[in-house]
């Protein structure tokens, strides 16, 4: 495992979700997400979890990708969603969301710091831990930011998926390759897939019903 051999995927692991979340052109953002999911699959494989890699490729990349494109209306349907997101979020809603996201981040970072610093981790340390944790945290930051900031429902679904991947990376970084970790991630992948499918179907029906792509007048804060 050379340094460059790890740095490149790790860098990509951060760049791809950023691209996915920042892009206002939605088909490209979805493509970026599929690429990111495939990269995640590669990561699982490199971490010695081939079954998880397969699950990520099929569930995370293929099926979720299909669901997202279905949500966009690109897969054989009559009414397409606009490909570009023009929505901006009203400022007053943002504050509570930002606070919630910051609290989440502070908690997560604090706990990881505590675990690493105190050497309290139950599984012995491994080479991959630090890059995994850093990548996971970075991805989580992006996912949280996007979830709090974006207004377009498809972009929020993307944000949720990215956030989920970040949590998975943290999970494996903290707890190693225990069989329990793989079980949790597998369940998480299935949930993310079902959630994405449901969300995409809903988005399509909402759009077909009254042409909207956002939740208008969403109240309260959002974790």
């Amino acid at each position, binding site marked *: 495992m050379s340094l460059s051999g790890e740095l490149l995927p790790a860098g990509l692991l951060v760049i791809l979700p950023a691209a996915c979340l920042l892009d206002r052109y939605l088909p490209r953002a979805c493509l970026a997400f599929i690429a990111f999911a495939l990269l995640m699959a590669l990561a699982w494989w490199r971490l010695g979890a081939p079954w998880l890699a397969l699950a990520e490729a099929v569930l995370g990349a293929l099926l979720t990708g299909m669901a997202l494109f279905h949500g966009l209306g690109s897969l054989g349907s009559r009414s397409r969603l606009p490909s570009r997101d023009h929505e901006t979020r009203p400022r007053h809603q943002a504050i509570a969301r930002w606070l919630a996201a910051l609290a989440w981040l502070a908690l997560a970072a604090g706990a990881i710091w505590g675990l690493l610093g105190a050497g309290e981790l139950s599984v012995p340390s491994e080479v991959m831990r630090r890059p995994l944790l850093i990548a996971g945290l970075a991805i989580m930051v992006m996912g949280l930011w996007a979830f709090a900031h974006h207004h377009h429902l498809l972009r929020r679904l993307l944000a949720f998926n990215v956030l989920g991947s970040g*949590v998975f990376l943290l999970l494996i970084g903290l*707890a190693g390759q225990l069989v329990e970790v793989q079980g949790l991630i597998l369940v*998480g992948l299935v949930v993310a897939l079902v959630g994405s499918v449901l969300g995409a179907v809903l988005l399509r029906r909402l759009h077909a019903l009254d042409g909207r792509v956002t939740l208008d007048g969403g109240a309260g804060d959002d974790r």
Partner: protein
Amino acid sequence: MSAPPEASLPLEAAVLWLALLAPPLLGLVAWRFPPRRMLLVLLAGASLPLATLWLLHRVASGGLLEGTWSPGGLVLHWRLDGLAGLLLLLTQLLLLASAAHAVGHRRATALDERAFAGFWPLLGGLATALGLIWVAADLLTLYAALELMGLTAVGMMLLPGTGDALVAGMRYLLYALVGSLAWLLGVALLLGATGRLDLAGLEATTEPGAVTGIAMALLAAGLLLKAAIFPLHGWLVPVHASAFTPVSALHGALVVKASFFILIQLWQRLVPEAVAAAWLLGGLGTLAILWGGLQAWRASELKQVVAWSTVGQLGYLMLAFPLLAGTSAAVATLAWQATWLQLAGHALAKAAMFMAAGNLVLSVGQSRLADLAGTSRQLPLSLMTFGLASVTLMGLPPSAGFTAKWLLLQAAILAGQWPWVIVLVAGTLLTAAYVFRVFRCAFVEDAPRHDFRPLPAGMDLIALLLALASLALGLGAEWPLALLREGGLP
């Protein structure tokens, strides 16, 4: 989920897993052949509560049942104590009632049979998810069950297909998904710190500290979001107001409580001594009681009144945390019993109330409170059911709500935690205010007459039975509470 159990108690385990896994099968059958008669549904499902009763009998005589099963190298744990058994029984009864009510609801609204068929497998899935939550004893099973519950619940919310329902369902979906990620992060921290997922092991190995605290905070955040505890309740009201009546009934009665159940189980195991945090939760409960009551009082539509009342009533459950944390054994015993009695009473009453409200709205054809004028003459049974259910919500005797409030007051006074006494009093008055507001509207005599649509008699009857059950539980509380006490306290 369906790998065969491997347990030391073969018969009991088999019965339990059969009771847990039968509902989805029944749901699939009903999906293929939608039932048209309420009685059929009741008969088909009647064996489930009977099985649970038998299991409860075994628990009462032989103590806790527990076991493990291991799919693919994982070791997953389950346990059935008095509490879990009682909750399972409650779940099955409420699911049966909702299923029967749903048959009548479909008939009364003249919905297309196929359009409604999706309800049945989702209901089955929800039954399994709830059952699993009550008996699961490790975080992985809990995670899977929690997610199954959330997703089936979202699916059920979407059934009406109206714009309101879709928006509300979408918001619920997003909140639920993010909530589950917070939960997963918390699990990751715990797993990292201890390397275990089973509750018993976690209880034994976690030490109080910053990491445990943060993990619990994340878990709690996810669960509070799913349980719609103030201030994370924003998604609940639109969802309840727009869903089909039996779905709102189930959701308000059971689904939000399942998250609370997990929260209190974890709390008692991981951070039982966190007094400040427990008071924080109690404070949130207080705000929920006040805010929910106030909003219910101001709401202009009947189903919104009921939905906001759920927000308020969930607050009472949160008062358990400060009364359990760092208090004497006597106080903890009282609070523990009060919490579960309140939960069960509210579940029965809220389901009855939703059904009665749904029946009223369906029959009047209008959903505003002002349109209820004259219902006391035209729809006395529905209104009576609503009234009986609200007796429990107000905590007036004889009802489970009253007995639970008595216990809570007793615990609060015994512990010297006077703030909760004031909260309970204020909450009761607020509840009475919004409940009697409904009645004032219904008792108005000089109002234009509507055409009242007749409903199948069974719909009112089921709601009435649930409401009566919530009353009977008030005076007959000793049997379940004795089972609870035997099952051991936190």
